[in-house]
């Protein structure tokens, strides 16, 4: 559709409010269901005042990616591929052992990753070895977060 020009398309809002209060009602006063759809389907859509929204269904790619082979790859693959792609960890800049410990702690404590405490050292060892192999490897510098405090300090994300 042609987009209206930028800015506010104004309407008499007081009037609209009254109409809408009647139209929307409370969660319990639903409008009667629409009549049964005809057999041949364009995707169902709703429209009003020149704009339509059509039901949508998509397929999202799944990720079969694994952590590359190396000591403890089996442990990290068993623990760190379910919630997100391995690339989330593999794309990180080189981090120190303390930083990786903070990350794994955050996964367990904040995001409730079902990772056994016994598996943590192997996972941290795998990730730290990976970081050491990167060109700009971290040497345990000033930016190391406190492994315990990290989840509470920045929380991260974005």
């Amino acid at each position: 559709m042609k987009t209206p020009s930028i800015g506010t398309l104004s309407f008499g809002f007081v009037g609209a409010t009254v109409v809408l209060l009647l139209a929307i009602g409370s969660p319990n006063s639903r409008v009667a269901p629409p009549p049964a759809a005809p057999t041949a389907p364009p995707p169902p859509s709703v429209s009003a005042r020149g704009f339509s929204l059509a039901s949508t269904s998509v397929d999202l790619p799944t990720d079969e990616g694994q952590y590359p082979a190396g000591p403890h790859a089996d442990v990290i693959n068993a623990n760190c591929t379910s919630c997100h792609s391995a690339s989330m960890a593999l794309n990180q800049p080189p981090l120190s052992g303390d930083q990786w410990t903070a990350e794994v702690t955050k996964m367990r404590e904040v995001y409730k990753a079902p990772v056994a405490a016994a598996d943590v050292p192997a996972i941290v060892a795998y990730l730290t070895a990976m970081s050491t192999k990167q060109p700009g490897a971290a040497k345990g510098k000033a930016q190391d977060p406190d492994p315990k405090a990290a989840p509470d300090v920045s929380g991260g994300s974005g």
Partner: protein
Amino acid sequence: MKLAQATNRRRFLAEAAIGSGALIAAPALAQSMVDLHLPGGPSERPMTSAFPGKGNMILQRIHPPLLETPMSVFNGDVFTPNDQFFVRWHWADIPTAIDVEAFRIKVHGAVTRPLSISLAQLLKLPRVELAAINQCSGNSRALFQPPVAGAQWRHGAMGNAKWLGVRLRDVLDIAGVKPGAVAVRFGALDQPVVAGGPDFAKSLSIDHARDGEVMLAFGMNGEQMPLLNGFPVRLIVPGWYSTYWVKMLNDIEVLAAPDDGYWMAKAYKIPDTPGANVRPGQKDFPAVPINKMIPRSWVTSLDEGQAIAFDRSIPLGGIAMGGDCGVAKVDVSTDNGKTWYKTVLGPDHGKYSFRRWDAQVPLTHAGPTRLMSRCWNTAGIAQPMTPIWNPGGFMRGNIETTNIVVG
């Protein structure tokens, strides 16, 4: 490693298979690799167009999707095409089908009339359209030095669109906000994939929520938005970082006490210091939820690492944003910031939009050349020369450099 099209989005922990450790090279869905020129960590990413509603994007993560917009896209129209608009989800339980007749937005909490709003009803409310930039809090995080953990974006975790929808204030007024309300929390259809994981929700102060600018958008650049950008309805918070622009919004809760949920109280927090800047490693700083954006600008007519023939003067173009207000002016330099030249600003699409800038600038010598642009916003704030640092990698806004080679 193959890209299965099967999509049991609740596949999940049961299948955390122990692999033999195939090398993470370009996944099968990658058409090619791109170098993001990152200083700290792995710099190469696959390019992919395997995602629904999306064209060629930089693949940061398949599951859940993190897709970055290639910089060249920003050299086109100041409005980012929907099919190249960046994508960012936290939890992988993302609905893959939306029935527009069944979808409802619940409005509840400290209101006199709890509502359950259908899309048909939403479409009948008074409409507004606004041009606004949606930029991830961690955009450009991969350039932080020393590096920080998090999604390793270059500059493409941002986009500009014309958002069509209704004012949040109007919806809240229909529900009737009770006296004593302090904030409004926004929840969405996506869910944590483990029990007890923090469900993504963000909140705004009641005054901000009722400022008449915050919108519930259903249209993006004249079309319904791609599912991956939040179909059918997403929150638009002009001038604020994208973390507040909740996608697949289906729950609006008016709160009588501040939001102490994880995503407000712990995550997305910045140092409460000038420019959100602290000394690398510093821990003892007060922190506040990230909020308003700051001025930024980029050269887009030439790519990082590009080689060009020597000429006494060259055309240079790019984009700028004011942050929480408009762009006042943009200057550019071709000599590492020693000499600055004025640029001509393109059409003004409103204070929250990207603004195109163009200039004809001299080149003094052949060889490696550092191009820079500097934006002043209408509040008089200019981009600083020196990068900030904070542990979350948030709010980068310094003058950016594009390195080219003049032959």
